[in-house]
């Protein structure tokens, strides 16, 4: 199966590349990737200071998530994420401070705004794929034109839910884009131990829909491939499985030590394919990017990240009521009693 | 050599004058052994099985089922010591001669036709023979109360009064036993006693609480009845006109020293009123135990003659079958009777505020020849006070 790639590592386009991003969009994409990378670094630093909880950095995979999300229409399309797709969520309207809020462990700070169409971050691998299929199916049943993109990784593809969900998606022709980001690792388990297949995407046709392999570090290719899948879904042609080949440049999570299993040589290969560098080179060649532009951008982003951290930390810590408030639509007498008993013990 | 032995109807109860033959368990010609049951006799108090005094062969029966014999009348003539012609034990079982309708009736009434003597030609069993032989339920005797006289007390037979089985025919049965006794007594009472009656509802909230406490102490079977008895006994102590009896012919009034409270108990055969003697001198616990014994004995028709005698006042409990109030009839020669309805929650004003309280409906009837309206009212008020505040029973 061929791998779709538009952009060389040196920033030049391959023959036949059908870039569907305008220059402004390409600039916005670059900024999004840089923002994500900065936020990642900041979050890492805060986690090391004990101000943040465990979280999974996105470093190295920015193009996969930025490029795919840029194919969506946030006004009607939905994202059903796993937990590493920060650039996609930011693009879709999820505020950075909420992202920080979630990993700080404060639910109130992470609350999805009313006009943002996304499911919450999902820690249990692959369980969100059935949700996404059901959501997409339901949107169609309700006569809405929105489609759903569901993110998951190479590890999640081994779960039963992946199979069950793909199977159902094919049968009901759910308007869903199944976006598998193969970053090479499930914690320490390499891709070769998740599947003996040559690709993940080749499974698509066995469920009755196309599967496509794309260079996950190529913003333009990811965007174009996803856009096509989105158009297919919106036209009622059913799901598409996209396998985005990328590489996790950071640890699995802040609690992980990848030096125990990552071969530095392999990592070096992928470092050369950095998604951000590539777009910078492309834009520089077009005269749309230079050191000055970069400096301005980095400064802006730093401020934005500082503001978001500050906003996330400004949220009041949760109280006993927060344990109960959203457990059910309304509390039973028994739960009210439990809440009252607990409140007496924990002064608010 | 053989001789004839006459077995006469013994006095099976205290001073009872007569007995009704309910069913023969033997027929003429039957060979019987000592202590084999010969006949069932029903007295005013109960049904008893009379056993044979000796081994022998039945020569003659002293009456038909339904006959009433005075004590001392010959019940059975039997040939003893020497034998006599009878049915050979090896004789093949022979079909009982009876029509299909009669056989069906026997099945329905649980009568073993082989043990019924047919009154028709050639011993053919008729419908009437089956009806009179309708046997008692074959359950074991309750207690050998009269064993020294060779008399056993057994549970009563089911009444055969009323519609046969809904098929539209009416069945007539003679008025006998307890039912006859009840009919006689109640006719006399209603014809002779001018009744006056006091109705009231008592706030029983404390009584309910008291009963719950006492139940914890005296066991789960503790009912309200012992409390009613204790209260009535206490009230009677202060109003002797209600604890009296009138002999209209002799024109004398008897005031009783002791309070002997009759408890009206419904049984399948009719009302039975065992008496709890000296209720005014017994503790609640004693009353409770005796109540329970008497009630069970009455239900199984195992009440002794003595246990039904000497009452001075009667209590009836409509509440046990859900009733609110009724108009009880005094049992002559007593002067009064009290009835209690079902305790129920009701909203009543308590200090001008609506409150939910437990209410006990109560009725007291008295013989107006002995008791005037105001005396009855005062008795009823006292009784009501004792029930409303059972602590007063300790006073």
């Amino acid at each position: 199966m061929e791998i779709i790639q538009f952009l060389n590592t040196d920033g030049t386009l391959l023959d036949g590349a059908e870039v569907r991003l305008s220059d402004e969009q390409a600039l916005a994409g670059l900024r999004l990737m840089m923002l994500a990378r900065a936020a990642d670094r900041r979050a890492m630093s805060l986690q090391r200071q004990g101000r943040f909880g465990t979280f999974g950095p996105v470093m190295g995979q920015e193009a996969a998530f930025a490029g795919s999300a840029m194919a969506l229409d946030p006004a009607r399309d939905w994202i059903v994420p796993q937990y590493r797709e920060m650039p996609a969520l930011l693009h879709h309207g999820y505020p950075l401070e909420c992202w920080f809020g979630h990993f700080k462990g404060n639910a109130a700070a992470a609350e999805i705004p009313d006009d943002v169409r996304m499911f919450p971050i999902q820690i249990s691998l692959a369980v969100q794929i059935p949700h996404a299929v059901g959501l997409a199916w339901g949107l169609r049943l309700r006569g809405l034109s929105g489609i759903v993109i569901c993110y998951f990784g190479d590890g999640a593809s081994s779960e039963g839910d992946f199979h069950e969900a793909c199977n159902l998606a094919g049968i009901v022709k759910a308007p869903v884009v199944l976006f598998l980001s193969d970053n090479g690792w499930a914690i320490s388990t390499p891709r070769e131990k998740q599947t003996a297949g040559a690709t993940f995407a080749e499974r698509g046709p066995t469920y009755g829909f196309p599967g496509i392999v794309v260079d996950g570090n190529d913003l333009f290719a990811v965007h174009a491939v996803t856009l096509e899948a989105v158009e297919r879904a919106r036209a009622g042609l059913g799901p598409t499985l996209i396998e985005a080949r990328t590489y996790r440049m950071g640890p699995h999570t802040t609690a992980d030590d990848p030096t125990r299993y990552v071969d530095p040589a392999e990592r070096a290969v992928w470092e050369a394919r950095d998604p951000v560098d590539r777009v910078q080179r492309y834009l520089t060649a077009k005269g749309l990017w230079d050191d000055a532009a970069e400096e301005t951008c980095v400064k802006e982003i730093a401020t934005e990240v500082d503001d978001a951290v500050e906003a996330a930390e400004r949220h009041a810590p949760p109280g006993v009521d927060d344990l109960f408030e959203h457990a059910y639509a309304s509390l039973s007498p028994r739960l009210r009693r439990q809440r009252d008993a607990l409140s007496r013990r924990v002064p608010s | 050599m053989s001789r004839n032995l006459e077995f006469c109807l013994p006095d099976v109860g205290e001073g009872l004058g007569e007995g009704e033959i309910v069913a023969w368990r033997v027929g003429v010609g039957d060979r019987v052994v000592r202590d084999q049951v010969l006949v069932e006799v029903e007295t005013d108090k109960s049904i008893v099985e009379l056993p044979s005094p000796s081994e022998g062969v039945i020569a003659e029966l002293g009456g038909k089922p339904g006959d009433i014999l005075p004590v001392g009348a010959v019940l059975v003539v039997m040939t003893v010591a020497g034998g006599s012609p009878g049915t050979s034990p090896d004789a093949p079982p022979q079909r009982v001669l009876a029509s299909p309708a009669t056989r069906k009736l026997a099945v329905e009434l649980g009568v073993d036709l082989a043990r019924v003597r047919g009154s028709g030609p050639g011993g053919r069993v008729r419908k009437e023979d089956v009806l009179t032989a309708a046997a008692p339920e074959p359950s074991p005797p309750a207690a050998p109360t009269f064993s020294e006289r060779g008399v056993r007390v057994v549970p009563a037979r089911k009444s055969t009064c009323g519609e046969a089985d809904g098929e539209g025919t009416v069945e007539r049965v003679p008025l006998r036993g307890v039912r006859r006794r009840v009919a006689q007594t109640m006719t006399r009472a209603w014809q002779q006693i001018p009744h006056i009656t006091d109705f009231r509802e008592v706030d029983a909230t404390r009584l309910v609480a008291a009963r719950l406490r006492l139940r914890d102490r005296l066991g789960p079977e503790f009912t309200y009845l012992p409390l009613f008895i204790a209260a009535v006994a206490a009230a009677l102590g202060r109003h002797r006109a209600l604890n009296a009896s009138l002999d209209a012919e002799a024109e004398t009034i008897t005031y009783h020293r002791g309070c002997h409270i009759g408890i009206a108990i419904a049984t399948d055969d009719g009302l039975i009123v065992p008496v709890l003697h000296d209720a005014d001198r017994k503790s609640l616990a004693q009353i409770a135990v005796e109540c329970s014994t008497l009630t069970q004995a009455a239900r199984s028709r195992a009440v002794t003659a003595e246990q039904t005698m000497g009452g001075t006042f009667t209590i009836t409990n409509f509440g046990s079958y859900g009733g609110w109030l009724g108009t009880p009839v005094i049992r002559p020669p007593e002067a009064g009777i009290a009835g209690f309805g079902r305790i129920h929650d009701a909203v009543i004003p308590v200090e001008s505020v609506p409150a939910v309280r437990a209410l006990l409906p109560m009725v007291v009837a008295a013989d107006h020849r002995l008791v005037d309206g105001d005396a009855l009212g005062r008795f009823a008020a006292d009784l009501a006070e004792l029930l409303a505040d059972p602590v007063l029973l300790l006073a």
Partner: protein
Amino acid sequence: MTVMTMVQAIRATLFEEMGRDDRVMVLGQDIARLGGVFRATEGLLDTYGPERVVDTPLAEGVIVGSTLGLAVAGMVPIAEIQFFGFAYQAFHQIGAQVGRFRFRTHGRFGAQMTIRTPFGGGVRAPELHSDALEAQFVQCPGLKVVMPATASDAKGLLLEAIRDPDPVLFCEPLRGYRLLKDEVPEGDYTVPFGQLREARPGTDMTLVAWSAAVQIAEQAAERLINDGISAQVLDLRTLVPLDIDGLVRAVERTRRCVVIHEAPLSAGFGAEVVATLQEEAFYSLEAPVARVTAPDTPYPLAIAEDLYLPSVDRVVDAARMTVKG
């Protein structure tokens, strides 16, 4: 009022509610064309069409998982798990996802969905069909667990479940599908959650049960009359939410209690009932609260189930012990 069997009541309720609200849909294995293996969804396909009456692939996980997605999309989905024993294969979705979705989204999304499933044994089903797993789902906060015991409750509670903004696990007593018949109110009839039902009044003791075990309790109560024991039967109806006040009030009156369930003894929901009673009604109890349950062993093959499940005899024995010591 019409006399219906439980399965007729369920079918009628689904039919009526789908007519009333076009967001309501049903999905599951064999439910459309066949009408469900118990015919609970028979006739729905003809009236409401294949978009709203859907035969799914044989996969409990995605049946429940996609139902959550459908609910977020604004449908009112009712999923069927063909046998409760198969719920194990959807446990990660029901337990970890469906129940806590409202909580995980801080109230942004609820999951207005119902999972219907036949419940309990006694019908000689093959292995793994009959497991009584209710207590395991009671341990999944955010989920409501509803267990009707009569046809009229099946209607009233199912309608309530469909309309409840939270996800409801709706367990239907399989053995009673065609056995239990009673008068079912017509029209828009709902039974609120968290209100137990006094299936039979009594004064000397209380038998607590749910689902099919209510019938066992009622039969036991009938037999206990011969012992002079007046046994009250409570049908809990919903385990989550639990009608604590109703339960405690009743046992405070009768002072004695036996709990009956089909699930194994240890950590069964009976343990919750007993614990609650000792917390709330300790000083009213005259005797230890007894439990009549399956043993802590796997559900056996068909013929042995009569030995395994609570029987009328066992309930009567326990009740006698409780009353008479």
